[in-house]
């Protein structure tokens, strides 16, 4: 339930910041955002009060206890952020290959050769589907473009 208190506090802060962000607007432009911020703030306050004072609803306590592998999540998130940051530099498809190969080597029980092989196959499949078949534009990659002239 402590999590709900923290979430409620964050939402309350967001509601106040949003209301402050539109406060100076005129001509009715601020009315709806302020009303919605008010609803969000009210909901957050009630949630906070219920979490601090009341008994957790049935099943909630177990949900709070459910373990999350935060370390693993953080690493996956960091690698994913790296993947998106790398896309404009090395291009979408090379970045996809590196991303998949890296995660498969780390997350699965496959041998590195198999993991890299699977990454190659999937990257090729994505290229065929999105690049050739659907002609979806993807980031080209500044470094690759420079190297290739």
């Amino acid at each position: 339930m402590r999590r709900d208190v923290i979430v409620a506090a964050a939402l309350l802060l967001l509601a106040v910041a949003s209301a402050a962000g539109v406060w100076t607007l005129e001509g009715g432009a601020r009315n709806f955002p302020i009303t919605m911020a008010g609803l969000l703030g009210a909901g957050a306050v009630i949630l906070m009060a219920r979490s601090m004072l009341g008994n957790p609803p049935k099943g909630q306590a177990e949900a709070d206890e459910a373990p999350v592998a935060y370390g693993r999540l953080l690493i996956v998130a960091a690698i994913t952020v790296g993947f998106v940051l790398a896309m404009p530099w090395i291009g979408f498809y090379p970045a996809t290959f590196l991303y998949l190969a890296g995660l498969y080597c780390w997350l699965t029980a496959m041998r590195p050769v198999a993991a890299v092989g699977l990454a190659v196959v999937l990257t090729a499949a994505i290229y065929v589907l999105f690049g050739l078949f659907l002609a979806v534009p993807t980031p080209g990659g500044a470094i690759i473009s420079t190297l290739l002239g």
Partner: protein
Amino acid sequence: MEALLVAASNVFSPEALLVLVIGTVVGLFVGALPGLSSTMGVALCIPITFGMDPAIALVLLGAIYCSSVFGGSITAILLRTPGTDASIATTFDGYPMAQRGEGTKAIGMALVASLVGGVFSALVLLFVAPPLSRLALLFGPQEYVFLAIFGMVSIIGVASGQALKGFVTAALGLLLATIGLDLFTGYPRLTLGQDELLDGLPLLPALIGIFSVSQALSLCISNEGAAADKPMLDVKGKVLPEWAVLRRVARTLLRSSVIGSIIGILPGAGTSVAAFISYNEARRHSAHPERFGKGEIEGVAAPEAANNAVTGGSLVPTLTLGIPGNAVTAVFVGGLTIHGLIPGPKLFTQYADVTYTLILSLILANILFALVGLVSAPWISRVIRVPNAVLGPAIIVFSVVGSYALRNSLFDVWLVLGFGVVGFFMERWRFPGAPLVIALVLGPILETNFRRSMQISGGDWTTFFTRPFSLLLIALIVVSLCYPLISRWRGGKRLLG
């Protein structure tokens, strides 16, 4: 009639049939894989439809939606691992049947029931939606205000045991929906100086983030899929049920199809609710209720007919009024809008050929997944042995390329990842995601029509309470708000009695 004929020729074109087959196969796998949902399947495939003709795009999305609901039942029966929430009730009797060596029979019944439920609901959509859309033409902005409120109230009300959290996430969605230029004054609101947000918070990145990336993150950090370690029961012999069995369950199939279609039309409730209600009704009407839970074939027929009957029903308010009743149909709204189709009565006048193509393709998709399912059931149950850690990163890559394709903007990719992380924690901490995305769809409808009503009436508030349809909708909202309280009070009285 002319539109129906055009739609028929669209549906039977080679391109549509090919897309239908692809959508059906994709949907079956999405449904069968635990951790992947119908919503995710439809959301991930929307970017693929960019270059397609709108009618063909909707055929693909419709086929994925229908077949993914059925796909979950195969693994529910053979592994007691429902691929989606819709198939949880199917495990009650499907798995005991499979344990007794009647897995093939159970899958056959699930196929027939899903076919009956799906086709029934597509026919409901075909016959109910056009008159409702004509009625919707009589609606003014005042009615749309109350329709949006009704949609919100319903979706919050059914967030089982999480009404407060549903309310909070809906309010957050409504607040996020105000981001962008104010259409009436031109003031930028809550854009944080980002030009990409001037047109508002794009719906699709939010949908893909909340429903796809969040699930993909869960798959990445989970240990090897539990389903992969479970012993799988064999599928051998004749799949289709015998005539005598079909006659015995005919009434259950019809009842469940009606229940599923009605629940689908009502905003808020979804496939799992329909499946549970139909299961209970089948047990209540059965001559042998004691057999339920021990491998009774009617216990497979009822939930499977009902959950597939939700598909067509849920598209009724979405297509006619533009009010999505659940998360999948909210995603559908996103799919319609990127093809320039605004959900509402115009879909049955200006774009009638496209809309009827979708409806007819739903009928065809239901027949097709039954045929594909008949052949591929043993293969589908093997596919779920793909480890979660292989699926997760691949889904993230699909989400990234799909979101980039929206506007060729990396900003949308960051939005997808941001919403993915938010969705991940929302799920862990039991904040329902559906009210948030439905609020993102309904927020602009609510605000625009409210302000338009006030402009038309010269600021007179009574304009909301003097129109018959408005009053009817207000009554519905009051009933939706009071129903949970009344049922709780009645439940309490029964306990005391």
